[in-house]
């Protein structure tokens, strides 16, 4: 009987194949989840039954499984997540957890007693976010492990990435989920094993592309959205409704329910866009939807196609603001809910960023725990390109008559302005960044050196790097080394040996090193070349130069210095008083260099990196020199200040 029941249950996914989204799977589909869940808005719980499967694609038998139990990060104040200070419960009601009350394998073996928690990252015995299940029999290569379980997920409050507030539910990282089993060689791994990290405040994702069949039962007056394609919505006749979704080839499944959602729909080529927002957020709905379309258009043209026919995004209301700025590939959240003044393109920036994760982590499913830069840094780099491309003429964040700010510069400012910018390399796992440097390093520094890489190898080559990266690694799990290899291949193909035999010298410095880049103009002199004058054999003599126009002959000399430890090739633009301009190239490896120009010209201006390619340069003020002492315009600024003060005084004096 029980056996028959299981056969029926496991054949369900096959029955649903008729409703598949893609004729040919986009990924290997190593894992899959069929979940039937019920939301109880009073107890803030989601209870459900889940069948999860995992295919052993390694060459060796596997005798245990590892799963993420993310919600347990909120089960006590001693979890690694809560102990970091990032979250504390809103009263005792605020704790969250996920509990498995029954666990069976396909043969009907009860595995409930073979579950135990492990803490592979920090050994914290109070951290219950990674579950190990010892199997009764090993899973042989090619075989599938099927687990059937009953689980209860109590959502936490306040919302941090997941949770509830009043009647707002952001149900993310809510079900027991497989880690990634990595065979030797995958991501340069030496031996087979599970890659299943604890839930840390600074990273969320690393998962196989999966198939999801999810049904949820919620109160009828709630409006819901998810990362899946809506298959059907049925009224149960008892004040609840059941919604069925299917998602394919995404790395995580999240959903949300709230009675207050307003729904906006739109379309971009073949992609149905659903926007869930609040009454207040409705007034910027057009901006938000356009931001997503910009993201689709830009990445589709420069990286690769957006393959899913559906996409849902959410601008959480104020009570759900903790859910803002999250990414689950086909569902993601913006932030701001219409509260941020519209001249500041923050909402659009967040929308574009979280959308971008559909590519960087969604399609190119890197390991965010171990290499956050490859996820957040690469994605921030593209977000900045998109924001500065579509808004404000290169100044995407703010473009007002008196002030402007580009998105790329915001990242750069955060990096160059951090006192801890040299505290760590850019290649640490998310939870090991010291002194609060995680965000600055994995988002902003990484984005800044990616802009620099683009400056060096050209935008066209950079786009080709990502096209190649997508072509090779879409729906797989690339590592940082795999990315570098792609860069090396494409740069070699397009530029030959111009940058050396590979670009490793670049990554050794920016990714694996801690040095900063700073070049400066150390000095400029335009000295007259005079004839010889002195004492020869006791007589004072003067040899005039043969050149009759001796008073117009100069030796113009430009001194450049490398102040930082980082060595990058730079360009130096030298301008002369007769209008001539010379663009010098320097490999930037020595501590200094001098450019000399004998002749009738005087140097009037010098600019290192005139096209602002080297975003990594931590001080651009010392990159230029002018012979006009008044140019820096301190006089102009002082005049403006004096006048402003005079006017203010006259205004405030009646």
């Amino acid at each position, binding site marked *: 009987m029980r056996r028959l029941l299981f056969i029926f249950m496991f054949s369900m996914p096959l029955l649903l194949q008729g409703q598949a989204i893609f004729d040919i799977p986009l990924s290997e589909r190593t894992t899959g989840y069929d979940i039937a869940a019920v939301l109880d808005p009073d107890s803030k719980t989601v209870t459900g039954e889940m069948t999860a499967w995992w295919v052993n694609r390694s060459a060796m038998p596997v005798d245990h499984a590892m799963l993420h139990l993310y919600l347990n990060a909120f089960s006590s104040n001693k979890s690694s997540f809560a102990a970091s200070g990032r979250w504390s419960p809103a009263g005792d009601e605020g704790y969250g957890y996920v509990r498995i009350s029954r666990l069976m394998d396909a043969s009907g073996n009860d595995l409930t007693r073979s579950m135990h928690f492990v803490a592979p990252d920090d050994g914290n015995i109070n951290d219950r976010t990674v579950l190990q299940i010892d199997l009764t029999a090993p899973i042989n290569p090619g075989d599938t492990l099927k687990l059937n379980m009953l689980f209860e997920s109590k959502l936490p409050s306040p919302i941090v990435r997941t949770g509830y507030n009043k009647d707002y539910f952001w149900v993310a990282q809510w079900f027991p989920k497989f880690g990634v089993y990595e065979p030797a060689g995958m991501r340069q791994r030496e031996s087979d094993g599970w890659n299943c990290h604890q839930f840390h405040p600074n990273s969320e994702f690393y998962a196989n592309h999966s198939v999801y069949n999810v049904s949820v039962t919620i109160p009828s007056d709630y409006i819901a959205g998810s990362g899946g394609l809506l298959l059907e919505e049925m009224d149960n006749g008892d004040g609840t409704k059941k919604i069925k979704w299917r998602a394919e080839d995404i790395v995580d499944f999240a959903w949300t329910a709230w009675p207050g959602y307003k729904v906006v729909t739109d379309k971009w080529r073949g992609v149905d866009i659903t926007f869930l927002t609040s009454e207040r957020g409705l007034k910027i709905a057009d901006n938000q939807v356009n931001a997503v379309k910009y993201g689709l258009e830009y990445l589709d043209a420069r990286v690769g196609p957006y393959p899913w026919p559906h996409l849902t995004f959410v601008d959480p209301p104020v009570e759900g603001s903790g859910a803002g700025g999250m990414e689950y590939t086909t569902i993601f959240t913006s932030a701001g809910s219409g509260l941020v003044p519209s001249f500041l393109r923050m909402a659009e920036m967040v929308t574009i960023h979280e959308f971008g994760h559909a590519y960087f982590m969604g399609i190119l499913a890197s390991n965010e725990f171990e290499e956050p830069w490859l996820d957040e840094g690469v994605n921030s780099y593209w977000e900045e390109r998109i924001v500065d491309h579509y808004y404000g003429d290169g100044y995407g964040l703010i473009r007002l008559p008196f002030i*402007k700010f580009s998105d790329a510069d915001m990242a750069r400012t955060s990096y160059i302005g951090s006192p801890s910018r040299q505290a760590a390399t850019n290649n640490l796992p998310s939870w090991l960044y010291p002194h609060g440097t995680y965000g600055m390093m994995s988002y902003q520094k990484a984005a800044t050196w990616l802009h620099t890489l683009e400056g060096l190898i050209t935008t066209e080559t950079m786009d080709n790097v990502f096209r190649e990266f997508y072509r090779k690694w879409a729906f797989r799990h690339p590592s940082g080394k795999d990315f570098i290899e792609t860069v090396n291949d494409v740069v070699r193909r397009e530029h030959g040996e111009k940058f050396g035999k590979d670009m490793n010298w670049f990554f050794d410095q920016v990714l694996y090193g801690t040095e900063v880049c700073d070049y400066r103009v150390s000095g400029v002199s335009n000295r007259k070349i005079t004839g010889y004058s002195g004492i020869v054999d006791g007589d004072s003599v003067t040899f005039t130069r043969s050149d009759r126009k001796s008073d117009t002959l100069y030796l113009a000399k430009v001194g450049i210095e490398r102040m930082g430890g980082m060595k990058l090739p730079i360009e130096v633009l030298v301008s002369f008083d007769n209008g001539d301009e010379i663009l010098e190239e320097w490999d930037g490896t020595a501590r200094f260099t001098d450019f000399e120009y004998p002749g009738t010209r005087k140097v009037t201006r010098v600019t290192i990196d005139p096209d602002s390619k080297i975003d990594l340069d931590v001080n651009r003020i010392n990159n230029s*020199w002018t012979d006009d002492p008044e140019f820096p315009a301190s006089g102009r600024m002082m005049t403006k200040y004096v006048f402003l003060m005079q006017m203010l005084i006259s205004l405030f*004096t009646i």
Partner: protein
Amino acid sequence: MDYFRILKRGAVAAATSYRLILVMWLTALMMVLLVALPLKSILKGVFDRSLATERMLDGFDAGLAGDMGQSFGYLIGAASFGGLLLILAGFLLFTFFAGGLFTRFTIAWGDLNVASFMKASARNFLPFLMLALLMTLIIFAWTALIIGVPVGIVAAVTEGSIMGSRLMLIPFIIWALGMPVWLLVTDHSRRWMAATGSGKIFRAMGAGFKALRRGFLRSYSTMVTLFIVNVLFFGAALWIATFSVPERGGLIFLFFLATQALFILRLFLKAWRYATVSELALIQA
């Protein structure tokens, strides 16, 4: 046409006081320079011979703040704290000068040399200061009541929707209509103090309100005119100063002269208001 005659007489009285206006301008300039010159040398220290200030020409590129590092914070801090001090000191200074100007427009009949101007300013200073503080407080309260409260309510009720922003025009109009009344009261009170030599500010305010009632339409329309001219001039002058970006030495000096001319004009407009109210009082007497 009393209206034009009064405005004209006020303008003439103000224009013939050009020496006093120049004294006011010079004193104010020196005071502001006390803060501005050190700021300038800090700026020079930061930028030296760099071309980086090009990034300020077409609106301030906030990315430059990152390159400036800590000195950006110091500069902004010094400029704002210095600015606050300047506004406080300026308030005292111009309240002081108002005492001299009103004397010039009432009992001195247009003939007041700089030394007498200073003496008159000093004599009137304390009562003028008390009155200025009181009236400034009233105007702040008026602004908070008429603009602050409704804007707060509308913003809360409509959650900042488009309907709200149009509604908000109404309190602004009411506010603007009320402002000439407060200016008239202030100026009439000060004129009364200057004319009588009395330092009793509440009696002065009583006289101010009384003067307001007599020939209200005439004085109100005159003051509305002056108020509008002042507001327009203020906006235009700031606009010009904000968006002018002279790049080189000579032009920067010309720019400096132009802004100072604008400020002198601004002082003239103020003196014109004072003189016009004094003329109004004469007609009413």
